[in-house]
């Protein structure tokens, strides 16, 4: 069973009388344990696709199966529950709660579902996650006391706290310099390789996309390219080469 199966997903926004089709029939599938990059220029529909994949939004038409379950018609409360249990999000601007320490930022998603977890258990698990992303010594630091890379790693720990089967990273390095970007991306690779977490990177940057093992190109609401060059090492080599020859990072 595939983790994600999309069939003929359409999404149309209405600006008054005018219909604006954003997704025009997207079909794809994602297996467990993949490290995938959704690529496209701004306005290509990649964010809309991510919102639908992340159960933040519903498609206008089409089928979306998440772990075999049809989710495109779920109510907003049901989708909230699904997001809490199965999905994690990492955002471009981190979205940490201000004046709240790292530990509490990470435990925050647990308050909405994990009633079976005791307070102490929740804190223990959050500390474990923060240690996993290399911030074990900064549990009580507030976001203002952390660097951008550290903030993003807190956000990653928060995305992982509910042990999701799928993590979305929406331009995770958009606000970071190139060195910390590299750190954060290699952390995603590590989590994917060692813990088998499925990760979808949404980006317009070929440099970021080359860290993925499969790259899906979106243009004007349709998938124009879907390459999965076997191993990560190959992908890296290929992307580097592609990057040196062409700015778009398209496969030759």
């Amino acid at each position: 069973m595939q983790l994600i199966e999309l069939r003929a997903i359409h999404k149309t926004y209405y600006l008054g009388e005018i219909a604006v089709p954003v997704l025009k029939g997207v079909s794809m599938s994602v297996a467990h344990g993949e490290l995938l990059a959704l690529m496209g220029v701004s306005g290509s529909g990649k964010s809309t696709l991510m919102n639908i994949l992340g159960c933040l939004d519903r498609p206008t038409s089409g089928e979306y199966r998440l772990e075999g379950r049809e989710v495109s018609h779920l109510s907003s409360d049901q989708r909230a529950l699904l997001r809490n249990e199965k999905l994690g999000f990492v955002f471009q601007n981190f979205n940490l709660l201000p004046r709240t320490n790292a530990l509490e930022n990470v435990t925050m998603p647990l308050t909405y579902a994990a009633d079976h977890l005791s307070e102490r258990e929740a804190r223990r698990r959050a500390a474990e996650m923060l240690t996993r992303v290399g911030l074990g010594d900064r549990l009580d630091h507030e976001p203002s006391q952390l660097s951008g890379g550290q903030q993003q790693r807190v956000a990653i720990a928060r995305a992982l706290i509910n042990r999701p089967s799928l993590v979305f990273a929406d331009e995770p390095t958009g606000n970071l310099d190139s060195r910390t970007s590299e750190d954060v991306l290699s952390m995603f690779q590590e989590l994917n390789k060692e813990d088998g977490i499925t990760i979808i990177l949404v980006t317009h940057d070929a440099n970021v996309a080359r860290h993925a093992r499969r790259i899906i190109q979106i243009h004007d609401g349709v998938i124009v390219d879907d390459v999965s060059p076997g191993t990560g090492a190959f992908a890296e080599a290929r992307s580097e080469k592609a990057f040196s020859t062409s700015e778009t990072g398209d496969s030759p």
Partner: protein
Amino acid sequence: MNAYRAVKTAMTSLRRNPMRAMLTTLGIIIGVGAVIAMMEIGTGSSSAIQKTIASMGANVLLVIPGTAASSGVTFGTGSRTTLTPEDCEAILRECPAVRNAAPVVWARTQVVYGNRNWVPPTMLGTTPAFLDIRDWANLAEGEPFTERDVLNVNKVCLLGQTLARELFQEESPIGKEIRIKNVLFRVVGVLSSKGANMMGSDQDDILLAPWTTIKYRVTGSTLTTANQSSSSGSSSSLNTLSNVYPGGQPELYPERSAVQAANNPMPVRFANINQILTAATSAEEIPSAIQQITEVLRERHRIRPGEPDDFTIRDMTEMTRTLTSTTNLMTNLLLCVAMISLVVGGVGIMNIMLVSVTERTREIGLRMAVGARGRDILRQFLIEAVALCLVGGGLGILLGHGGSYLVWVFLHWPVETSPLAIAAAVLVSAAVGIAFGFYPAWKASRLDPIEALRYE
């Protein structure tokens, strides 16, 4: 999401921005503080007003003997002599709704000092309790006569302002002796001024003396001779009387033996009084006071069930009605002021909560993205609003209480702590929190997570 976590989340959010929380609370603090201060000062003023009206005699009940009738001819109320000083004592002892009771005997005769004379329309023999019932205990000069003066049949008296002015002009009457029917009375005090009553008669044209003295030395000595000059020849009988009562308790009958007392338990009635003046403990207690007095007197007068009373009880219906309507008016006025303050405070809360929702749009979006449902967000913001209101209510109670205390200390206004107002303020501030916090919370819960996350 359980309740404990919901409260904890809300508290954490509030703690994150203490300045905003404080400003939000300020509206409620001032609102509730105003309510409490208004209620305390208002209740104090209200009960001061009630006390003033009560001092005009609103709580006074008058017990007067019934009518005498002979062969179908009735003589009007007060014509029978059925009331005794013991009735008065029994009323005071056995009626919990009666605050005080005083026997009253009347006289009307001439008062002489030096070359001046005057006939006060009211000359009453009574006990010191009379002053308490009429709220007249603050004398302009001197001191009231005492229970001991009553027991000893002492020749002392209190003068009203008008009488004192007529007899003494500018002189101080204290310690001077005046003659009432050739009996020398020492003036021990002058009553404060009360002015005319509602019927227009001068209440200050009055002389008060112990009822025993009036009974035995003034009216009792010779019968109904209002003109002093006509009885001036009986000065010898006066001297005799002074010998009969040389300052001790009057003993009209030989002391009864124990056997006599057992055989004939009927008390020897040796004095009748004209009326009994009683005061109910409060205006609300008047009906029960009337009922209790009726029971006591019927029993003491041995009236069988079904027989008519041999006495009448009068109350001051007109004044009581004024009292009740004043109280209602004050209560409603206070309620209006309280409501306005709380609504103002509530609107303040709503404003800041709306700003807070806008300011925290991204946070709301994030919470929704990680799995908060609309109702979780609604609950969080409602709890925040209610918590702010409750804290504000608590501080407001302290502020209002402190304010009214200061008013009491510096302005000497009457102030009364009102537990009801405090309880109401707490409930109302929680209600205000829910009512005015609901719209912003509902607005927050309806946000679209995608839009909210993108909000700058």
